[in-house]
């Protein structure tokens, strides 16, 4: 078993809006081991992106981490002072975002933006930093590295920009890469290339990856371990094969059923009835109760907790109280 790299315990991140308090990340816990790829999957608005941003303390202005601890390499990230957090970012933890086209500063060249973390964290000279940047670009399969470093972001395609983002995230040999929906904004073919790239990086450098996505296909390809989130809470988690073979939570089951399979013909695509609840007016109940086929009375009055069901799989559902069905 690999060493534990990142441990998130009871993370709580709230947003303070003019309509009320939104509990975007509501008592979320999970762990990532060295060299492991953990996928957080869920629909839009379930809190998966905010979870990732909370790790790096990059949440938008009206949000705040209100509780929990995040242990990384022996340190509680939430208790670090600003300088230490900054030292971690881009250095031991790298991050890539969803929209490569807007994630790079339009008025600086690719090269100028790539050498920044290298100069800051690895303390290389400008010349050496440029050399390293070009090495990274070539390693990621982009030709003409010398030309690329002098181009501006708007001169590159989305796929190339995302590779550059990965290069930047990799530049200081991080232990963990957080990828927030890295392929959502890209074409399917480019998506495949980027995912291949990430897999190779993991193999070569033994980097852990925290991959945020709403696409179960991506999960199937990339994940070692899966965390399913709904309305700010973790509803199920487990090793990828077991989760896909034996989903426990009704929501996970619904997600898997909803994904169309090539070769299968159906008159009607399966959908999970209902809508995600309004995160401002959450009641003390299972948040999924309104949409659940198996909803019981207890589901509407009390929140289920995550229980271990079987070999590493956990689910938060009243169907499995006491670990039994």
């Amino acid at each position: 078993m690999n060493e534990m790299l990142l441990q998130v315990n009871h993370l709580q991140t709230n947003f303070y809006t003019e309509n009320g308090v939104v509990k975007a990340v509501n008592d979320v816990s999970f762990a990532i081991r060295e060299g492991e790829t953990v996928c957080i999957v869920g629909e839009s608005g379930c809190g998966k992106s905010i979870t990732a941003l909370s790790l790096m303390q990059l949440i938008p202005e009206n949000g705040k981490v209100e509780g929990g601890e995040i242990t990384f390499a022996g340190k509680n990230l939430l208790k670090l002072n600003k300088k230490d957090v900054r030292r971690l970012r881009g250095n031991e933890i790298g991050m890539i975002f969803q929209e490569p086209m807007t994630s790079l500063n339009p008025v600086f060249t690719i090269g100028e933006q790539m050498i920044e973390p290298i100069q800051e964290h690895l303390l290389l000279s400008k010349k050496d930093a440029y050399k390293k940047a070009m090495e990274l670009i070539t390693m990621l399969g982009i030709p003409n590295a010398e030309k690329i470093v002098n181009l501006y972001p708007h001169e590159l395609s989305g796929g190339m920009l995302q590779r550059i983002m990965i290069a930047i995230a990799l530049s200081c040999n991080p232990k963990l890469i957080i990828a927030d929906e890295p392929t959502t904004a890209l074409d399917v073919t480019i998506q495949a290339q980027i995912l291949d790239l990430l897999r190779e990086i993991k193999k070569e450098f033994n980097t852990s990856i925290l991959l945020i996505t709403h696409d179960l296909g991506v999960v199937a390809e990339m994940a070692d371990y899966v965390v399913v989130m709904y309305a700010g809470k973790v509803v199920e988690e487990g090793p990828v094969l077991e989760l896909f073979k034996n989903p426990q939570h009704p929501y996970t089951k619904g997600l898997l059923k909803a994904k169309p399979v090539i070769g299968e013909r159906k008159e009607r695509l399966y959908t999970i009835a209902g809508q995600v609840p309004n995160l401002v007016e959450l009641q003390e109940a299972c948040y999924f109760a309104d949409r659940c086929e198996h909803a019981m009375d207890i589901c509407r009055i009390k929140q289920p907790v995550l229980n271990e069901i079987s070999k590493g799989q956990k689910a938060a559902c009243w169907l499995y109280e006491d670990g039994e069905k």
Partner: protein
Amino acid sequence: METHSPIVKKQKTMVVVKSPSLWKQTYRRLKKNKLAIISLFFLLFMFLLSFIGPHFSPYILDRTNVADMNQPPSAAHWLGTDNYGRDVLTRLMMAGQISLTIGIAAMFLSVIIGSLLGAISGFYRGAVDMIIMRIADILMSIPGLPLLLILAAILSEWKVPAEYRLYIIMIMLSFVGWPGLARLVRGQILSLKEQPFMQATEVLGLSDRRKILHHLIPNTVPLLLVVATLNVAGSILSESALSFLGLGVVPPTPSWGNMMDAANNFMDFRKRPWLWIPPGTAIFLTVVSINLLGDGLRDALDPKMRR
């Protein structure tokens, strides 16, 4: 089908969230902006003071009383008297009527001319658009005050009788104000035209007039509201500048601007600040309130700005 019954069952328990209309939301947000509300109340106060205030004053505006000349503020005359013995406070209130009326009237004229021309320009494009926008550009390329001076010169040549002078000033101010508005409205129309609801009006075969007046212009109202409010502030400042220079409202008609002309006289400036500080303060406070209100409106109408 296994999915049918749950859907039908669930519909009864689904909560329908009704989102309030644009105006209600705007009003709610505006209420939270304390500065804007204070400004609104202050403006109401100024209006009442100017239009109703004089009725409570024991002094008749134009009656000169040489014996009371140049008195500093006292119990009888809260803001003192001017060099004709007239009560300054009463004059201030009467002047308020003039300045506020001119400001608002100029704004209306600018808005009407500007939005119509801007809408026509943006809607029909082509030669009409080019001509109107060229004229607007040219007018905008001549700086404000010099342009007003030229217009004032032209109008003084035509020896306009005193009663009509006020209307002429309103027209002058709107002449300078409409190009900016036309440009704004045109821009809005251009982007609105591409929206699906305009395609719908096309499919329905509505007339151009209906499309412009009933569909396009009403959608520009939020923007227009903000711009119009700020326009009043600008008009009041311009009118007072002109009157101060003697090219706007001329005595004996009082305006806040020409009341400050007293400051041009050396003695009055040094020794009788009650003559020129009140009108200046009145202009300042009124304009600040209008600006704060306009800004509050802008924030209330577009919360995404979060400025």
